[in-house]
């Protein structure tokens, strides 16, 4: 484990990508997090390049006088890598939640957790399809929402909106 954060009542555990399976097995067997809710990839390309003006709160956080006070412009905190993978875990019946986070550079792969939680199968396929994150050891890492021959990964920040090539046009 690299870091532990508590923000807004949510616990985030930042984990070294090479040891994700080890961390997940520990959380499942020792801490009782038997339920994987979700795997969410986030692309931070271009994060913090422009200053966010009229920030709601202060540069040190919130609480600038009364509720809804307008604070200063600031740049969001830099992120350690381009992609974050967030594993949301839940313990039944303990009712605890935790977020496990790993940071990946473009092209860096991570070990699959299908062996730990079978439900990770489709979540990882979706992360691969939408963000292009490769999961080593996944038994069936194919596209799930887009077509098999789709080019690019639509939820990446550098993927354009609109303007996709028209299929079945006169040229074909």
């Amino acid at each position: 484990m690299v870091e532990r954060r508590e923000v807004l009542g949510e616990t985030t555990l930042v984990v070294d990508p090479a040891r994700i399976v080890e961390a997940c097995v520990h959380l499942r067997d020792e801490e009782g997090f038997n339920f994987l809710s979700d795997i969410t990839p986030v692309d931070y390309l271009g994060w913090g390049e422009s200053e966010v003006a009229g920030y709601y709160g202060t540069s040190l956080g919130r609480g600038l006088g009364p509720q809804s006070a307008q604070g200063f412009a600031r740049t969001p905190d830099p992120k350690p890598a381009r992609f974050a993978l967030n594993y949301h875990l839940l313990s039944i019946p303990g009712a605890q939640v935790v977020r496990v986070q790993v940071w990946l550079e473009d092209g860096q792969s991570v070990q699959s957790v299908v062996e730990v939680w079978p439900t990770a199968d489709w979540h990882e396929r979706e992360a691969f399809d939408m963000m292009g994150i490769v999961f080593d050891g996944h038994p069936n890492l194919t596209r799930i929402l887009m077509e098999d021959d789709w080019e690019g990964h639509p939820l990446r920040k550098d993927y354009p909106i609109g303007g996709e090539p028209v299929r079945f046009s006169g040229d074909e």
Partner: protein
Amino acid sequence: MAVTEPRRIYSGSRIPSPVPTLLQVATDVEDPEDILQVNFGPNHPSTHGVLRLVVDLSGERVVGLRAVIGYLHTGFEKNMEQKTWWKAITYPERIDYVSFQNNELVFVLAIEKLLELEVPPKATWMRMLLCELNRIHSHLVFLGTSALELGAISMFWYCFRERDLVLDLSELATGMRMHTRYFQAGGLAEDIPRGFEAECRKFVEWMPKALDDYEAILSRNEIWLERTRGIGLLSADDAIALGQSGPVLRASGVDWDLRRDRPYLAYPALDFNVPVYPNGDVYDRYLVRMDEMRESVRIVEQCLDGMPEGPWTADDRKVVLPPRHELHTSMESLIHHFKIVTEGYRVPEGEVYVTVESARGEMGCFVVSDGGPRPWRVKFRAPSFVALEATATTMTNALVADMIAIVGSLDSVMGEVDR
């Protein structure tokens, strides 16, 4: 009669290996000559939208199965990144067009958590009321369509009759029958209209009788019992391993409901039961949903009784639109109105994951904000998406006719699966 026979759930795990969501033909047992591969969907009335199941059949038995999704992928999450927070609220409802109110709620709760915004109690209680009405709506659609697929067409008409009552209430309160955009960061979009309470009480009185009628039609109906009991088995351990939630999980004997176990809104102030059934078959999923509708009616009644007085939205001019009449007299209000509508409000930097118990299970929303007027990333944890992961496990040893009952009992909405 079959009713008295005890049902037994399998022991051990039935999740296929190595791919948990893919039932592969056991070539050592099955003769490849006997196997017929059939495409079930994507355009088949019993697949609840555009689900495609590629099935390997040996006679009438399902020996291989692969679920193919994505036919309804419209890029909601990408679209929401382009909209201001304020305008993005309309999207989650359209993701799951049957359980729309709960989806709207989860996104609004995520925004409010990032804003650390206090919501007045009246708004909280009205949200609970509408979410429970919406749960009834969703389960009615489940019941009507599932029964229709198994041949009971009259159920469809009865369920849609009551569904219309719910939609009428929704229209009365919010102006829209579906996709209401009635919840927004800070509270509600409008005050609860006069006359809503009276109409809602009529519904609360009527609905238990309608539920009795449904049970009279189905619960002791030999055909319904034969088609649903012992079909589509899913054990408690498998259900948790496959991430199942909501009625599917509770029908497998896991006593888990986010409304009670990880409370949000004002659910701790209410008195309701969480129905749990142990057998993990289609029939128990039906029973769970029937009982949940009864509980939801009770919750609606309690919400009506306990509805607090007071404002319906937070008095926070940076986030909530000012009252319309002030625009003619107050320069400040005009500026705030203009800023919110054009530029949108800003949400502090951060990331949150919020879950609610939607009609289908754990509806999660993960939101990242960079402090700007638009979400950096929105991701929905769709219970329908996860429910379809269980198709391979539940359809082990199924007959082709049972597939329809099983898909119906998982109650997936394809809009939510594909997003």
